[in-house]
């Protein structure tokens, strides 16, 4: 009756993102390594909005149902900020 649950992909925003050690715009390794392209780079919703040139960015795993749990993103992340689980 209910569809199969998607894998859980979680990014630790204390490591990557607007409050993390690096600006995700300068890394984007997970976005590029993911064959199904499940990640989205976007402005951080928790920070003051700059409508012309946003300064604060984060990455959200959006298309979770397409994740194959290949773990490439976990391995490539220089901060170890990504976890993938069932």
């Amino acid at each position, binding site marked *: *009756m209910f569809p*199969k649950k998607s894998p859980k992909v979680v990014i630790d925003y204390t490591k990557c993102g607007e409050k993390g050690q690096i600006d995700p715009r300068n890394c984007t390794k997970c976005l590029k390594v993911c064959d199904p*392209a499940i990640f989205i780079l*976007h402005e951080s919703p928790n920070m003051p909005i700059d409508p012309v040139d*946003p300064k604060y960015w984060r990455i959200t795993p959006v298309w979770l149902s397409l994740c194959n749990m290949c773990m490439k993103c976990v391995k490539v992340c220089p901060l170890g900020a990504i976890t993938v689980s069932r």
Partner: protein
Amino acid sequence: MCDWCMKHGAGGKWYMNAKNYSNELAEAINAREYLQEQWKAFEMVYIRRIMGITSIDLGYKLQLPIIGRLLRWSAERMIHSEGKHRNPVRADGHFGQVIPLEEAKIILGNLAAEPIIENYCMCRWMQRGIKEACCINFGLLSGVIEKLPRFIPKDTKYRLDRDEAIAHIEEHNKKGYVATVWFQPVPYINAICSCENPECGGLRLRNDFGLHTVYKGEYVAEVDPDRCQACGMCVTKCQFGVLRLVQSLKRVIVDINKCFGCGVCRHACKYDAIRLVPRENYPALRGVY
């Protein structure tokens, strides 16, 4: 002929109707305000809550019983909305269609309203973190995007004249990118993109979730069995997995049910064996976009 041609095509294809490109139409539907709101935070479109629901794990949500069907119905309604109170931040009334290179050239050469600019592709930026200047925008949208520095190429000329725009779309198409033309919002046309699957937000929703953000083109590819030398080069170009090299037949076959009619495969063929034929030629494909 598709529904949008009936409504906005003036007896032909919707994207061949000059009226849909005009500044008068843009003003009549308040396109400037819509586009400003839409573009200043476009990357947030999947993250935002829309009626309490975000696009996060959309694939799961769409498969839920009852809720999934309701969600699909309301998403399609939003994508195709022609109402007065369209919400720009969720891209109401924003969808497109695949077109072959020849038609993209006609649009850029004759129909597109000036100024014409080429800016960084939004989708490749948000899905891959890549800045690649391959989206050709025109009319009111040019002025809106020019004010957003993250989309404007720094060291290259981004304002194009018609001949330059045609040369650029040809270059992208030959590289393997699919030309698409966009309502934004319907019926105002202001963009020709060079899309890649699955990076394109529209193709993602269409191919992975079955939402009609991008319609298939008016054509399908046809392989001439006498000319095909079974080199398989075209297979490497197809973004939609439509072509297959069948060794026992010594030729390439086309899955026309899946073909988007972009014509990109033609550029890879040294033997001139692939041509585009109108979708209407196949009775089973009539009206199937």
